[in-house]
């Protein structure tokens, strides 16, 4: 191996270093985890032409081609021009100059999403359609952000392991006259959700709306069509989730029952917030660390800047993080080593 390789630069172009010297793995973005199947032919072509014939399903739902030799990277970058243009510019409306140099940045990680309501009987929204609207807000950018999107509070899209989780919720209407009092919604809510439904004395259903997850299980099981989702879509936004060696933790609810406009407003403010926290020098850190550095109050102020909250939305007053400490008191360190947020001297 006698090559002079700028690994950091390659990484920014969505190429991952291999333990095999001189080999790299391409990661193709699949925003919202859904693309036309025809693109898979390109993946097959890359793998068979420049890779080692293998394909890996990326852990962030990217299409990964391992075993590409360093010298073939320019050829692959040129080849994926059409893919990037069709998926990013055409499908998602990202305004990006078309080039033969591959991805311009890896900052905003691929937006993962479950299959959503185009298929799933439990999902409350079309995850991919919203992912396509989010993609131009965060990409291309050197500031990092990880987003996981799920159609329902089951969170198969692992939003709670991401900087942001966008979890589909429905506001439910109860059509009193259609209810036959069979109690199946009450059972389903108890079994799958928070048990906010109860039978009344006269065999109808009462709801303790405080803790409704908006999962829609009641509508799924109702044989009479007595539970219906309001047409407007709502989302639970979770923040600060992450995996990692130090302090993995599940994300916590930031806003419950936000509208799409609020989701887009919040995510649109992320770059500004990141840039401020990091003194305008993008480095790779999980979003949760940035929130910790700035403090939740500062995060809340900056991320909601200009965002008009819908009346149904409820915002976390504070966040009770629950980290898995891999080592006791890993956060108790000399004060001089504390990360500092905001512009530095």
């Amino acid at each position, binding site marked *: 191996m006698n090559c002079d390789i700028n690994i950091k630069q390659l990484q920014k172009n969505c190429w991952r270093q291999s333990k095999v010297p001189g080999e790299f793995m391409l990661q193709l973005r699949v925003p919202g985890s859904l693309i036309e199947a025809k693109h898979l032919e390109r993946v097959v072509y890359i793998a068979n032409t420049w890779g080692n014939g293998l394909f890996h399903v990326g852990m962030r739902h990217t299409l990964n081609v391992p075993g590409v030799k360093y010298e073939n990277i320019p050829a692959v970058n040129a080849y994926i021009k059409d893919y990037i243009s069709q998926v990013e510019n055409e499908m998602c409306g990202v305004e990006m100059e078309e080039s033969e140099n591959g991805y311009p940045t890896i900052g905003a990680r691929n937006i993962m999403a479950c299959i959503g309501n185009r298929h799933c*009987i439990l999902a409350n*929204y079309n995850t991919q359609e919203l992912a396509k609207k989010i993609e131009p807000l965060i990409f291309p950018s050197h500031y990092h952000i990880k987003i996981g999107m799920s159609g329902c509070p089951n969170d198969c899209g692992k939003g709670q392991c991401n900087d942001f989780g966008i979890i589909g919720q429905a506001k439910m209407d109860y059509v009193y*006259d259609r*209810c036959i009092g069979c109690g199946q919604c009450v059972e389903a809510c108890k079994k799958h959700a928070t048990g906010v439904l109860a039978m009344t004395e006269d065999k109808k259903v009462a709801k303790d709306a405080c803790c409704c997850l908006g999962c829609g299980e009641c509508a*799924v099981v109702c044989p009479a*069509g007595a539970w*219906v989702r309001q047409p407007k879509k709502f989302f639970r936004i979770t923040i600060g989730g992450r995996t990692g060696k130090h302090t993995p933790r599940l994300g916590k609810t930031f806003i419950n029952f936000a509208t799409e406009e609020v989701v887009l407003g919040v995510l649109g403010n992320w770059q500004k917030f990141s840039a401020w926290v990091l003194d305008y020098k993008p480095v790779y850190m999980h979003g949760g660390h940035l929130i910790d550095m700035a403090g939740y109050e500062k995060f809340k102020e900056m991320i909601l800047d200009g965002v008009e909250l819908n009346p149904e939305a409820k915002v976390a007053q504070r966040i009770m993080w629950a980290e898995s400490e891999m080592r006791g008191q890993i956060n108790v360190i000399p004060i001089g080593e504390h990360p500092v947020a905001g512009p530095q001297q």
Partner: protein
Amino acid sequence: MGYSLNHRETNALFDRLAAEYKIYAPKRFAKQGRYSDTDIVRYDEIHTAEEIVWDQKSDFSAKEVLTPVTEPIFYFTEDEYRESGAPKKKILIFLRPCDINAFEHQDRIYLQNGGFCDSYYQRMREKTRFVLMECTEGWDTCFCCSMGANKAEEYSAAVRHTEEEILWSVKDEELTPYFAGCQEADWQLQFIEKNQFAVKIPEIADKETLAKLKKHPMWQEYNDRCVSCGSCTLACSTCTCFTTRDKIYSENAKAGERRRVHDSCQIAGFDAMAGGHGFRTTPADRIRYRALHKVHDYKARFGDYHMCVGCGRCSARCPKFISFPAIINKMSAALEEIAAEASK
């Protein structure tokens, strides 16, 4: 008499009818389906032709117009029951031939069975007129032809819907004056002659065979497949079961109403007596009970037709894809087995 009305003219007709009739038709409730971003089509009052869903089978049947899911029958105080009020206007229902035939079964149970005439049903039924929606194609869950329910006679008017116009054929003289001045048109009402599939109706020879069929292993698979939700029967156009419940008004605990609420033999507890003892305790028991009612018991009681018009709403609404026609065919196959066993 035949007429041709464009949609604007039809809407004007509906306006004229409104003085005397409430018009009910299959109507779209956008995004109110079981799953996100799916619609539900069910019967409701309409005022324009555009509100009528022509190209889709309604998820729930027209029975809901005459017997609402929740229907107050009495208002009570501590010492008096007062009957709930009757509808004031007449009722015009847009529905397909199978649905009209389904009302024969509703009529039989509510007006005749046991010599008791249910006054709540009767007061609605007397006021009801049918507008037959021509149906020549059906859908993949339909088997009306197998049940002999693809044609209907009892209607006041029939309609054919096209992009441009609605053709009317008016039989009922009560409706004729409303068409004064409308453009006459000659057209022939068609009925569907063949569904996408046919079912084999089981013939159960005697009580002994019936008992064997009840014990046949064919029902067991439904213990795994059926969740006893009752979607099939609630959507069914011929099912009539209800339960009676009392409601106390929260503002005045001494007053309230007694109401009927649709019920389903598929839901656990349907047969449970005070104290909890029930007779059909598994999904298989309940499916067997429903299936035999539809294609044996009812006919055994009344002698003429089976209690199924092949509208297929049961299969269409089943969240677990249990096909009722498949059950019927399995019953026929099981009977062949039983017959073969007996002749050994």
